[in-house]
């Protein structure tokens, strides 16, 4: 069990880094599932569980700094428990959710606690000490590794017995409540994006996107294409306008463009 737990911890640590650094996205459940399966000795179950988790957690990505429930821990622990307890993947998700939300909290805390480090960066910059700045970055990446590795290690090491004991001690409504909260969580990321991007003069595009998906179930790619078409049209309308102003100002004739 120790070897497995250590391997899982290593995997979790690396995936924890990849979530912010590197971003090859091997940290998504669809990839981690199979890897956890390999370590735990049941590749196929791992693969299937990872795929299942992926489909549920598709919208969970860090947007503008807002952290959704942590998919690395969710994916690893969910898959590991699915293999250990031989439960159906959907149930495994239930067990993984509290961990995913706990790590979401931890990472958010980490990002807050790391803020004072910026004083150090300022000092190094003033002194031209670029090596110092580089070290701060390596230190940050190490934190990601540690948080993920430790959180993944403990439940695996103390085994399915202890874990399922704890989990079964938790009332059912807490588990399903966390699962509900996890589903709602992407709203926060979108709200932050809106805070950055939404100006009064852009509301109409937001409405169009919402209506097309809510009523017509269009996919994201379709919406992006529609948005692109609108943006291109808008660009040409505005560009021609500007060119014409210039022409008028210069006393030229109307531009051919319009």
């Amino acid at each position: 069990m120790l070897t497995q737990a250590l391997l899982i911890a290593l995997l979790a640590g690396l995936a924890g880094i990849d979530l912010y650094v590197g971003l090859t996205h091997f940290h998504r459940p669809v990839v981690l599932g199979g890897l956890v399966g390999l370590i735990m000795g049941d590749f196929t179950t791992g693969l299937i569980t990872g795929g299942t988790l992926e489909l549920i957690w598709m919208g969970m990505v860090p947007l503008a700094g807002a952290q959704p429930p942590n998919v690395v821990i969710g994916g690893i622990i969910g898959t590991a428990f699915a293999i250990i307890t031989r439960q159906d993947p959907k149930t495994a998700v239930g067990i993984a959710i509290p961990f995913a939300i706990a790590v979401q909290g931890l990472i958010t805390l980490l990002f807050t606690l790391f803020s004072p480090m910026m004083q150090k960066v300022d000092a190094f910059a003033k002194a031209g000490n670029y090596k110092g700045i580089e070290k701060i970055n390596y230190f940050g990446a190490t934190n990601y590794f540690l948080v993920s590795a430790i959180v993944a290690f403990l439940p695996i090491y103390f085994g399915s017995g202890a874990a399922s004991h704890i989990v079964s001690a938790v009332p059912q409504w807490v588990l399903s409540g966390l699962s509900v909260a996890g589903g709602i969580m992407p709203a926060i990321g979108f709200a932050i994006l809106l805070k950055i991007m939404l100006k009064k003069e852009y509301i109409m595009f937001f409405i169009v996107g919402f209506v097309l998906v809510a009523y017509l179930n269009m996919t994201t790619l379709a919406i992006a294409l529609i948005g692109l078409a609108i943006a291109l049209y808008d660009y040409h309308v505005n560009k021609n306008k500007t060119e014409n102003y210039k022409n008028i100002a210069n006393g030229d004739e109307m531009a051919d463009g319009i």
Partner: protein
Amino acid sequence: MASNVPYTFENQTEAAGLSRHELNILAFRSLMLQASFNYERMQAAGWLYSIIPALRKIHKNKHDFNRSLQDHSEFFNTHPFLVTFIIGVVLAMEEKKMSRDAIRAIKIALMGPLGGIGDALFFLTLLPITAGIGASLAVQGNIAGPIVFLLAFNVVHFGAVFGLIHVGYGTGVKAVTKLKASMKYISRGASIVGLTVVGGLIAAFVNFKITYVWSMGKTNIKVQEGILDKIMPAMIPLAYTLLMYWLLKKGWSPIWLIVTTVVIGLLGALSGVM
């Protein structure tokens, strides 16, 4: 927008250009952009990390180099797949020893739109598509699932990271002023695409359903399907997102929003409403 005491470089000579190889190294370093992420300056130190070798080459004068390091340790946040475009543009300007204000203005003008558009296009469009295909293979036990996903996703990912640095550098050298003039348009266009997509994503990805069934005598009405969906599909996800947005504008921090959301989820499950 200008700092109070405008700094001018002591060494005003234009620096030698960066080679393709040097640019590729910067692109590689940019993978560390979020290594020191924090809520005060977000990617500031990571940004600095990415461009250090170039700054060292451009500013042989020590004062200029220190000054430049300081300037670039300001708040910074953008999408990590698009950051190399900004790196390219900014270094082209540094190289020409352009005014600190111009450089900072370009940096700020670019980071916001590119952040939103990148999130929308890479994390919320590319990722669901490629991971969706991968997952639908994986759930059938097909090992091609994760492989197809990783390949498809990273061809675009690394294509963007290693491609855009050259595009940005080329643009920056040739036409910084032109870029600034068209920034308004680019930013507007990016906002249009981004907001259209975000509007759709709320309906697609925020999963907030009322499971409560309203019973009166023999009648059972499913509140979600029978009432809410009839008013407007995805009404609650939209309302909740707008509530979060409003609270953010009121000054709430994301952490509190997360806590609130967890509490709502727990209450919902406890009461059987959600």
